[in-house]
């Protein structure tokens, strides 16, 4: 671990949002949000477009004013401070590098503005560049760099100030899949080394799942769930989270409980349950058991409407006699006979999620996921 990284790790600060809200004129983007991000934690914010992710980030950074509420970074109330006095650094979606400055100048710019003497500047830029494997490119302009290199410059620019908080607004969305994958690994490694409190906005689930200590799922300016990736995947707090995370997403359909079991619309029983009235039943495509033998719970006959073979596995779109359609992911490496058009399915109770019909909130007891 470099000296720089040590310093940074020491600087990591807790972020507390205390009932913050944000409206643009009449448009209430964030009604009221309270949340605490631990020092050094890597938080990924996930949510549909327009739900207020960037707005939230920018309020933390000081690029947008809060309409009301308090933001604390470390022990300091910052909601009225200028961006430069908050100790945050930000990496933008398209990096927003200064195209007229060399890599060196880009990275050194914040130090220069802060009036740090030339020799110290040089030293710190050198250290950051070494850490990000940018030493050979210091004299290039951003226009002469590849996408991945540009991102590293953007990160270098952010960390050279040794910020307590690192903010990322969809930094990988402009990269192609392969580069994205590489950058993801680099980012995780970086965080491991410097440990700044990190907030990372993305649309990409793979990024969210792999990078986050905790994922904050947002919807219309509100927190749907804030938990570890495993919990978010394994115990989605609402149908929104369930439908939003996982690809293909969780199958959700309406069932009716008669106090003893849950039944489909046409009366076929799905599983035993003491629930009464309508509930939403959710099961992930990969959890639907195919041709499972010898278990005691009910099976369904399903017709294959459409199958997609992805090499490593298959996605099947199937429909039940009762009319419900859903998707199934076959096991990796496992392939069903090509000619088959019908399957025998089971919904293993340990993989079933129940949600309230009205609110969409989870009714399942929270299971512990390792």
């Amino acid at each position, binding site marked *: 671990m470099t000296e720089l990284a040590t310093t940074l790790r020491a600087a990591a600060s807790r972020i507390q949002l205390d009932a913050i809200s944000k409206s643009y004129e009449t448009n209430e983007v964030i009604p009221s949000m309270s949340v605490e991000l631990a020092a050094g934690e890597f938080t990924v914010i996930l949510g549909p477009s327009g739900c207020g992710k960037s707005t939230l980030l*920018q309020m933390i*950074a*000081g*690029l947008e004013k809060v309409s009301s509420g308090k933001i604390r970074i470390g022990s300091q109330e910052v909601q009225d401070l*200028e*961006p*430069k006095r908050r100790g*945050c*650094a*930000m990496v*933008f*979606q*398209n990096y*927003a*590098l*200064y*195209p*007229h*400055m060399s890599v060196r100048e880009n990275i050194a*710019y*914040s130090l220069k*503005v*802060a009036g740090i003497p030339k020799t110290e500047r040089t030293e710190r830029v050198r250290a950051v560049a070494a850490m990000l494997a940018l030493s050979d490119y210091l004299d290039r*302009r*951003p*226009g*002469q760099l590849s996408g991945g290199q540009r991102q590293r410059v953007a990160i270098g*620019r*952010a960390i050279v*100030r040794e910020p307590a908080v690192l903010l990322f607004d969809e930094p990988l969305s402009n990269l192609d899949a392969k580069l994205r994958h590489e950058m993801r690994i680099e980012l995780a490694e970086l965080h491991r080394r410097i440990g700044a409190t990190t907030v990372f906005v993305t649309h990409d689930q793979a990024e969210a799942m792999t990078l986050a200590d905790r994922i904050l799922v947002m919807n219309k300016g509100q927190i749907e769930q804030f938990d570890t990736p495993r919990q978010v995947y394994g115990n989605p707090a609402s149908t929104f989270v369930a439908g939003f995370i996982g690809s293909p997403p969780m199958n959700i359909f309406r069932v009716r409980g008669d106090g003893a079991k849950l039944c489909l619309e046409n009366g076929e029983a799905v599983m035993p349950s003491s629930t009464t009235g309508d509930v939403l039943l959710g099961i992930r495509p990969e959890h639907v058991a195919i041709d499972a033998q010898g278990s005691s719970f009910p099976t369904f006959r399903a017709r294959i409407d459409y199958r997609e073979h992805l090499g490593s596995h298959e996605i099947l779109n199937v429909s039940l006699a009762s009319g419900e359609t859903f998707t199934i992911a076959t096991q990796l490496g496992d392939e069903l006979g090509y000619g088959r058009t019908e399957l025998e399915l089971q919904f293993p109770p340990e993989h079933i999620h129940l949600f309230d019909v009205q609110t969409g909130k989870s009714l399942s007891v929270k299971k512990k996921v390792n």
Partner: protein
Amino acid sequence: MSTLFPNRWLPLLLAAPMLALVTLFFYIPVFQAFYWSFFLERPFGGGSMFVGWDNHARVLSDPQFWSATYKTVVFMVIGPTIAVAVSLLLAVAADRHIRLAHPARNVLIWPKAVAGASIGVVFNFIFNPFVGILAPLNGLFPGLWNPGIDGADAFTMLIIAHVWGGIPFNFMILLAGLQSIPRTQYQAAAMDGAGPWRRIIDIQIPLIMPQIFFAMVLEYTESITSAFGLIDSMTQGGPGGATTLLVYKIFVDGFRGYDLSGAATQTTILMVLVLLFVLAQFALFERSVKYER
């Protein structure tokens, strides 16, 4: 490339009207001027004599020519520089979200609609040493300002009027440039600790260098057009030739003095001069103002 059409003659046909026009009214006159510069032309025609480089020698050894050239260069350096600089300041100001920005964006381009020749009278009025806006100053310091006597004053007056007319175009170009700077670029600088003043110098101006360059190049040629109308309506080249720029001298020599050969010779020299300016501009700056975003 498949984004192109393969036709061979059609493009020529399409470009032909424009080419014909520039040939007829640009290249032939330019060539004609070049041709005449080697002849002594009688004003009414009927006899022209080949004199080789005599005309050039005569023009080049004429101190008046050099003084007009010098003034042209001074005007071409000062006029466009101020016009672009003032427009730049205004554009930076109008790019901010302030109440005046909206009306200013409109008002500042109004001069585009007003001909130099018709506003010259007004500027003469304004700068009249006895009744204009500087008259009170003359009351305090007699003789401080009189563009009718002092060449520098007259020159200043021309520049002020030229800048007045040059603001709109430059302002539009520069404002368009500023508005195309992505918002995140400012945000990044703010995160880096650069305040709004500092961002002007470090971010905005460097990023619209291409537009500044473009405006400067066009200003050089525009300054010549504009100078003519203003000189003709304001100073007629005076006092004592102090505002006789080359373009006006050519007009006077050719149209008032019937010295077609001399005027043609100076025309060719002026052309070379303008081209040198533009080329120098390109050589000096073009590379350094192209950024890939």
